[in-house]
């Protein structure tokens, strides 16, 4: 094995010879690797963050009673179009692991408070939020404990009723009565501004519809295609209900997601290519300085292929070193960058690490490739200083 020993000896010499040059190359390769690892990781992470970000829009899937009377008729005679509460269980057994499900029962009631002289009719929304979580080990529906006797009054409704926080409210419908303590909700600008949200149980008692709900709103996180697949699956699973996406949000989300992910992918690809080319330019510049070495090796009898292989091996080793250190640094960087962009630290994706190390090695080898041209020059001209 004298051949291999010699190879490593030359390697050591090459590395030891010019520390400054080595530092420049390692810096370039490492920084390139760090940059691409950070960007790749952010890019992969951003897409999944984005779909979570979309949930600011609120629920995107509706489970409603099928064709029975319609919501307008349902309002005048509430019994006509309701779902059984058991539908929550059916949804829970369905596909995505984490879903927030809000069950609503709507009715119109006469609302009066101590401050208002006359009862006002308002929409009462009985609401129960559930977090269906099958990803954790206990796989359960988590029903947050409803605050008993509290009702969330929309801004418009509170203005109409002359209501302050913590006033007592009386709700009357069909001779039944419920009371609650008011809490003024934030201004939202939609229908909930004029509604009064109470516990689902209270609304069911008030409407004399125990165990019934008007509709369910699901907030499903996922890529647009996943959400569509989920809607189809759920519709098959619960034939008694009408499951549909809230087109306003699902359509817009799909469109915006496409745009943004296209944007991110192309910019990332561009910057990656650029980083590669820049590292290559830097490396090539440095590599061309090896003329004298190549000339010497050829002069003392090194075959062109062997000499070339030596330098390519050197480049690959440098690429590996730069990549291993740089990519790790890049992943760390992306964690903190993720924090500044999304407020949450980006999760390091393991796939990114080997990919960026491999990319760095590739770039290092490719940028040492111009040395091939040196193989054709005669050693004598190098020594004369002509090349």
């Amino acid at each position: 094995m004298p051949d291999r020993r010699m190879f490593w000896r030359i390697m050591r010499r090459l590395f030891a010879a010019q520390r400054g040059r080595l530092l420049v190359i390692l810096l370039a390769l490492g920084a390139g690797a760090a940059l691409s690892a950070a960007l790749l990781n952010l890019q992969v992470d951003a897409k999944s963050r984005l779909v979570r970000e979309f949930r600011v829009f609120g629920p995107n899937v509706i489970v409603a009673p099928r064709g029975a009377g319609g919501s307008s008729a349902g309002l005048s005679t509430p019994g006509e179009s309701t779902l059984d509460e058991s539908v929550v269980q059916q949804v829970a057994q369905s596909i995505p692991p984490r879903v927030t499900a809000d069950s609503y029962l709507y009715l119109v009631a006469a609302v009066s408070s101590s401050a208002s002289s006359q009862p006002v009719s308002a929409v009462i929304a009985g609401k129960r939020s559930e977090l269906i979580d099958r990803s954790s080990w206990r796989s359960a529906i988590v029903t947050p404990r409803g605050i008993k006797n509290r009702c969330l009054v929309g801004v418009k409704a509170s203005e109409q009723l002359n209501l302050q926080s913590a006033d007592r409210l009386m709700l009357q419908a069909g001779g039944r009565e419920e009371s609650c303590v008011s809490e003024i909700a934030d201004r939202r600008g939609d229908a909930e501004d004029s509604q009064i949200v109470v516990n689902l149980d209270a609304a069911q008692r008030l409407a004399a519809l125990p165990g019934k709900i008007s509709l369910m709103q699901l907030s499903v996180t996922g890529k647009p295609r996943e959400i569509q697949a989920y809607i189809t699956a759920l519709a098959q699973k619960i034939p008694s209900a009408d499951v549909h996406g809230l087109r306003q949000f699902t359509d817009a989300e799909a469109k915006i997601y496409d745009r943004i992910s296209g944007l991110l992918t192309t910019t990332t690809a561009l910057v990656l290519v650029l980083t590669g080319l820049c590292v290559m330019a830097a490396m090539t510049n440095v590599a061309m300085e090896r003329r004298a070495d190549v000339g010497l090796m050829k002069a003392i009898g090194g075959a062109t292929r062997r000499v070339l292989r030596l330098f390519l091996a050197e480049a690959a080793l440098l690429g590996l070193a730069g990549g291993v250190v740089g990519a790790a640094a890049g992943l760390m960087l992306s964690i903190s960058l993720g924090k500044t962009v999304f407020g949450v630290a980006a999760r390091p994706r393991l796939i990114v690490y080997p990919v960026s190390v491999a990319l760095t090695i590739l770039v290092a080898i490719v940028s040492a490739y111009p040395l091939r041209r040196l193989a054709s020059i005669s050693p004598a001209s190098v020594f004369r200083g002509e090349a």
Partner: protein
Amino acid sequence: MFLRLVADSFARRPRRKLLTGAALALGMAVVTAAFSVSLDVGDRLAHEFRSLGANLLVTPQADSLPLEIGGVDYRPVDAGAYLPERDLGKLKTIFWRNNIVGFAPVMEVPVEAWTKSSQSLSAPAYSVKTTLIGTWAHQPVAIPDGRSYFTGMEQTNSWWHVDGRWFRDAAECLAGKSFAARAGVKTGDVLHINSSGKNIALTVTGILSAGGPEDDAVVAPLQVAQQFAGKPGQYRRLYVSALTKPEDDFARRNPASMKPAELERWSCSPYASSIAYQIKQVLPGVDARVIRRVAEGEGSILTRVRSLLWLATLAALLAAVLAVGASSAASVIERRSEIGLMKAIGAGSGTIGFLLAAEQLLLAFVGGGVGYALGIVLARILGEKIFGVAPEPSILVFVVILGLAALVTLLGSAIPLRRASRYEPAQILRGE
């Protein structure tokens, strides 16, 4: 002599200079593209976000409590207040009129509907209870300055999918998907609508799938709803879709408590809330509210995408610094003997540094210029591919890019230049 030295340096090492210049041009091209797209992305995405529909809701100020569930008001027609339709042209007179993409007034009437076919299927008196939503599809609105502007649900609710075509006059309507299934209505059927003693026959021109409560309703021109309600020229609610700037803390402040200068700055930013404020000023007796769910989601996503793009721009810049730095470091090392010679014949460190810096700057301007031209082409391709609209090339970007190129080359060569100025001429000339 100085110029000659610089020119000589370029002539003697064309390949080396070309390589550095190319790296710089490439880097600047990507930076230019990323920069132009980042500048433009806010506007482009704001347009995309308009497919979410209205972000402002206008209602009468002195109104009874709406019985609104999922966007449909179930109040009887005689309850609550209405707003005049003829004022709507004034919306296009506010300061941010060009940011208003579209608006559509809405009025709901509870009705009963039947068709000939459903009548023949079941009992003769069979009719289906539903809601008639009166609105605009694509309506010309007269603007006070004499022009007219077309708007309606086709603009504001772009997710509404009509199988068939939209209604064009007061004798036509759309049937919601679930309603159509329930009442057995097809495109082309004549739908008889009955409410509070009035009877109107409408031809169904399309089936609407909206994914909301509208699926279970009849959507007809606003004047049909006005006839049923006996409220000619009036509407109940107005949806406004406007291009807005993401809201920050400043945007959420109450305009009533602002100083005049602040109020001016506030109303000169297209925040959703300042547009709402201006709508309130131009339409008397209305309450204009920001639909938080839409506006806030839009703001947060926009901010994030923008900062991601800035990061990518920064990364491109870093890569360019890297390339230029490494290649100029290499060139200084290579030119040791030249530097030594110059020093030996009496050039000071300052002069040499100046000479080298001038060379780099020349390179920066040429490389930066070429890079800018390339980057603009790249940005056009990107913009057209992703958004269908190319970003406008801007002078600002050009100036910034040239400045950046100069900065990058100077930064990249700062360390090697400092080293070069410390060389001992005697050592170099001896070959050490």
